């Protein structure tokens, strides 16, 4: 055994030494036409892969476009996107790897909120600008100077537009009692965070406020409770899968609230595919949409049609592109890759992207906003604010099957 242990040791030492010295072979001095490297991780496999893959496409399309029109600061951009398999700790170590091993010049944002939040912490430690969806309000209250939600996917702002719409109705028309069920994770809880205030402003009483762990085994018990309590507004702070189950349970139990708010999931094509007409009239929120009138949105819709045969650009394709745009404008505005200069520029001049014009505050956030959507006749329409409205909202929700 001692002989093979010694051999073992030498092998181990040999590999170790090799690994230690290989990176030193990478070039230190860079020519000015060397690419600008932008690195990070995305969930390309695992639970969030469906979304992660579209964000990646948004990033890569942006890189293509930038390189085709002269590059960033005159240099081509190169993306290094690792797969974190939808796991937060992998996201942390891969971002660290991008920074310390690949020595990237800029960082790209991760997904979902929990990973982004953890990566924000890493980026802050290394004093690098990090543009992403953020990890909801809690992550922006840490005093980070280098993180920006551009735009953020802010659960707390999610239903803001819906609440304003409710406020614009005469009080007698508004729902009286609301029942809320919330997926017990960062996103669900963030979305729930805005409820108390929003409902209060319209004089709606919250009679049920239940949490559920994901995955949701069965929605019937929760819906049954809401029906028994006579709630005429139902708020499902969850995701696609549990959202679908909830709608089905409502139909099975013949529960007909006047208004259904849904967290995440009613905006993707699969919603209508799975539910058909039952998926109609559900109201949700978003920070970006393919029907928005901002510069660049129409072109991206066209790209989605040509490349993937879709009717419109998927939401996360737009987000990916928007986050890169923000980073790009920060770099161009600062005129350099200096992280502090970029951060300073974003806070003083702001950006003008496909998500609109935004200037970032000390926390790295633009002023609070949200667009409200409703699925009407199988199409996602914008119903609030009025300036972007694309269809008349349907309220109250017609009973099932009619």
């Amino acid at each position: 055994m001692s002989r093979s242990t010694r051999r073992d040791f030498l092998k181990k030492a040999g590999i170790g030494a090799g690994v230690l010295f290989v990176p030193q072979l990478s070039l230190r001095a860079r020519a000015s036409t060397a690419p600008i490297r932008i690195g990070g991780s995305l969930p390309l496999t695992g639970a969030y892969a469906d979304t992660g893959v579209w964000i990646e496409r948004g990033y890569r399309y942006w890189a293509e476009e930038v390189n085709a029109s002269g590059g960033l600061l005159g240099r081509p951009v190169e993306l290094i996107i690792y797969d974190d398999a939808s796991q937060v700790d992998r996201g942390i170590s891969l971002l660290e790897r991008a920074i310390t091993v690949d020595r990237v010049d800029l960082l790209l944002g991760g997904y979902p909120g929990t990973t982004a939040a953890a990566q924000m912490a890493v980026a802050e430690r290394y004093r690098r600008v990090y543009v992403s969806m953020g990890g909801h309000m809690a992550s922006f209250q840490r005093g980070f100077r280098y993180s920006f939600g551009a735009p953020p996917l802010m659960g707390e702002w999610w239903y803001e537009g819906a609440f304003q719409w409710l406020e614009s109705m005469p009080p007698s028309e508004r729902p009286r009692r609301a029942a809320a069920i919330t997926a017990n994770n960062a996103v669900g809880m963030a979305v729930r965070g805005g409820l108390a205030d929003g409902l209060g402003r319209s004089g709606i009483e919250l009679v049920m406020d239940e949490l559920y762990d994901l995955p949701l085994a069965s929605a019937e018990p929760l819906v049954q409770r809401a029906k028994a309590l006579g709630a005429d507004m139902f708020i499902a702070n969850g995701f696609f899968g549990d959202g679908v189950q909830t709608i089905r349970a409502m139909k099975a139990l013949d529960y007909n609230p006047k208004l259904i708010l849904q967290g995440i999931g009613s905006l993707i094509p699969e919603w209508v595919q799975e539910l058909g007409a039952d998926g109609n009239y559900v109201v949700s929120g978003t920070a970006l949409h393919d029907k928005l009138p901002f510069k660049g949105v129409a072109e991206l819709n066209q790209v989605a049609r040509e490349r993937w045969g879709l009717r419109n650009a998927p939401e996360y394709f737009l987000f990916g592109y928007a986050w890169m745009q923000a980073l790009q404008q920060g770099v161009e505005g600062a005129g350099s890759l200096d992280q502090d200069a970029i951060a300073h520029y974003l806070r003083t001049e702001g950006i003008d992207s496909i998500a609109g014009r935004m200037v970032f505050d000390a926390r790295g956030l633009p002023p609070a906003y949200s667009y409200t959507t409703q699925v009407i006749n199988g199409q996602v329409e914008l119903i609030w604010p009025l300036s972007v409205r694309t269809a008349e909202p349907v309220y109250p929700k017609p009973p099932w099957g009619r």
Partner: protein
Amino acid sequence: MIGRHDGRYVTGVLVACAFLPLLRPQEYVLTFLYNLFSYAAMASAWNILGGLAGYLSFGHVAFFGCGAYVTGLMLVRWGWSPLATAPLGGLAAAMLALVAGYPTLRLRGPYFTVVTVVMVLAVKIVVLNVPWTGAAMGLWMPFPPWDPFVSRVIFYEAVLVILLATLLGVRWVLHSKFGFGLRTIREDEDAAAAIGVPAFRLKLGALLLSAFVCGMVGAVHGHDRSYLHPDFMFDLHPSIMIVLMALFGGRDHWLGPLIGAVAVMIADELLTVYVGTEAARMLFGLLLIVVIVFLPAGVISLRVRRQPKPVPAGRGLMMP
């Protein structure tokens, strides 16, 4: 005799590893070794209960998470560094072990194992739904106060120290009356009790010790990540890894789990990078099967033959 010299050899290598950071290696190397030492420590400690006494717990990740959360909360509330409070994290884990173990160590075999899984799931639900742990939003901790590379080195040394201490401890246990008693429990618990072995106390002791180590490792990891969430702090996969490492390496030798950890970690790294996470886990599933069926005493048994090969429980009637 096999074992004496190897022990010193390996210990020497590990001590030498303490000086590795002076060579300014890639951070990724340090991270890999950091994870390796952590798993090796936990697997070695687990082995006291699992390998020696034969009580297979798939719940040790609960102690890891417990240590992380307790020290993390102390950092958030009172500003105490988890590196200093790690032993307290270990103690908290040991207390959890006491509470969980007292009623459940009376159970045998499969009942005990399933209960350990239930324990992890239960702790996860509790942590997810109790507000002061950060619940489903997770727990945000202040960063370690050093610059990234220095942090990495400090954590690396911390788990190395824990590993060395654990290995010494395990080696002591193996050669002591305590360890001997545990092994008799594995052979035949009732007979052992009949001859006066205080089975329950020994089992409890083994559980508490292994929980303590896992808690300390958890404390260091928690500080390193600076963000805790039940989804990844109470995930069953690390528990499976610990069991696999201990069994694969060899449960009757104090170096066994360490060897198992090295083998499994390397396999995991290669597979995850070149093939994919699920493929890696599928392989570990298969490895578990292969190991327990063909190599119940672990890889180390290929070199070390301490006990006679077990006679299968009767040819003829008992066999299907």
